[in-house]
């Protein structure tokens, strides 16, 4: 426990986390500091490309083996099942309607790639290795949660739009395509490819992550300010309880699949994190009656900072204690 706290402290005092805190504080203090939308999107494309490519290079030569496939199956199962846990918790802990609870559940079954990226950078700084294919697992976990959430709504008799077009949009959304695509590029070009673009995908990574987290802090802070206590205690509590539940489930799956301590920490992080890119757009189409600001504020304003500051160091410590 002392270890976890000291790790957490260490993690808190990195430029990345402090950049997030700066953004959060600036937005809460109503500073007009802001990052242009185009720059934020470009940084997210960069992070996806870099993390996918590095994962691909890490598996280059190993080929697609059974281990990768079981890990992906485990991740997909998590993404399918976590929305049920989230939905149950939400209906118990909060006054959210079925539709709102299902929408939030979809976000929590899916994953946040920036949380994942931050976890990989914490692992890297502590010299802990992890399976390169976890990037592919992350991509595979984006979509299944949406199905479960829509099933929960349909069961209750409310209207859901779930046509082929929406499927197409979800499965080929930008982050899945870029993550998988750059993973393949990394796997195909391997070390020779890395030698060419290392200065961009590795050397500049942490610096750009700082600026991106600054923006995430600003967006989260603006969301929190706009909701001004409208979230309710139960909803806020859910935002810190659910990642712990998710991380526990992720730990179980990681042990079943037989991941390394680093891979276990990443699987826990994925399960504990909540989407705020792909799922929100899908929910607007499929569940237009759901209030978008509830999910986004919860995912980005409560769970994301929780994972960034306490979650990730704890998951890493637990994964090492159990897996090491």
């Amino acid at each position: 426990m002392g270890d976890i706290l000291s790790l957490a402290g260490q993690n808190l005092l990195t430029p990345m986390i402090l950049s997030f805190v700066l953004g959060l504080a600036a937005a809460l203090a109503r500073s007009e500091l802001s990052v242009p939308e185009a720059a934020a999107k470009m940084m997210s494309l960069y992070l996806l490309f870099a993390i996918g490519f590095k994962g691909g290079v890490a598996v280059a030569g190993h080929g697609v083996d059974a281990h990768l496939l079981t890990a992906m199956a485990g991740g997909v199962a998590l993404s399918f099942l976590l929305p049920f846990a989230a939905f149950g918790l939400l209906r118990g802990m909060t006054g959210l309607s079925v539709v709102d609870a299902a929408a939030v559940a979809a976000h929590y079954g899916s994953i946040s790639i920036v949380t994942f990226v931050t976890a990989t950078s914490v692992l890297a700084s502590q010299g802990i290795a992890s399976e390169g294919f976890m990037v592919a697992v992350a991509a595979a976990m984006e979509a299944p949660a949406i199905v479960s959430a829509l099933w929960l709504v349909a069961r209750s008799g409310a209207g859901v739009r779930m046509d082929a077009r929406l499927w197409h949009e979800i499965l080929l959304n930008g982050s899945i395509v870029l993550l998988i695509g750059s993973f393949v590029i990394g796997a195909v070009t391997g070390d020779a490819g890395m030698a060419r673009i290392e200065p961009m995908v590795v050397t500049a990574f942490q610096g750009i992550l700082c600026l991106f987290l600054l923006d995430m802090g600003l967006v989260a802070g603006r969301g929190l300010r706009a909701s001004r206590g409208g979230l309710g205690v139960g909803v806020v509590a859910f935002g810190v309880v659910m990642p712990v539940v998710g991380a526990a489930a992720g730990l179980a799956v990681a042990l079943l699949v037989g991941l390394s301590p680093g891979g276990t920490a990443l699987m826990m992080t994925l399960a504990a994190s909540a989407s705020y890119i792909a799922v929100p757009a899908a929910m607007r189409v499929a569940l237009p009656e759901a209030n978008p600001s509830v999910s986004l504020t919860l995912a980005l304003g409560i769970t994301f900072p929780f994972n960034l500051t306490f979650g990730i160091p704890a998951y890493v410590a637990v994964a090492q204690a159990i897996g090491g």
Partner: protein
Amino acid sequence: MLTHSAKRVEIIIEAPMEGRLTDALQAAGVTGFTVLPVLGGSGRSGQWSREGQVGRAGMVAVICLIRPERLDALLEAAFRVVERHIGVVSITDTQVLRAERF
């Protein structure tokens, strides 16, 4: 100069619905439209802004100039798409040059 009566329909709609709306317009025989970006706004679902967002967040404004006799078909088509969604639709009388284009 010679101008012709037309309708200017302005639909402010969530960005993830843009493709569905424009497809529906085209299916309803609308031959032209223009999409403008939106920075932010406020309505019954609260205030929002595009700053620093990633993902397909926010709204767009779709503007359609159309002959008056085709207005109803357009509105039916648009309404089916926006019905359950946040956003607004307004219709203004206007005049256009080069009526053969509409």
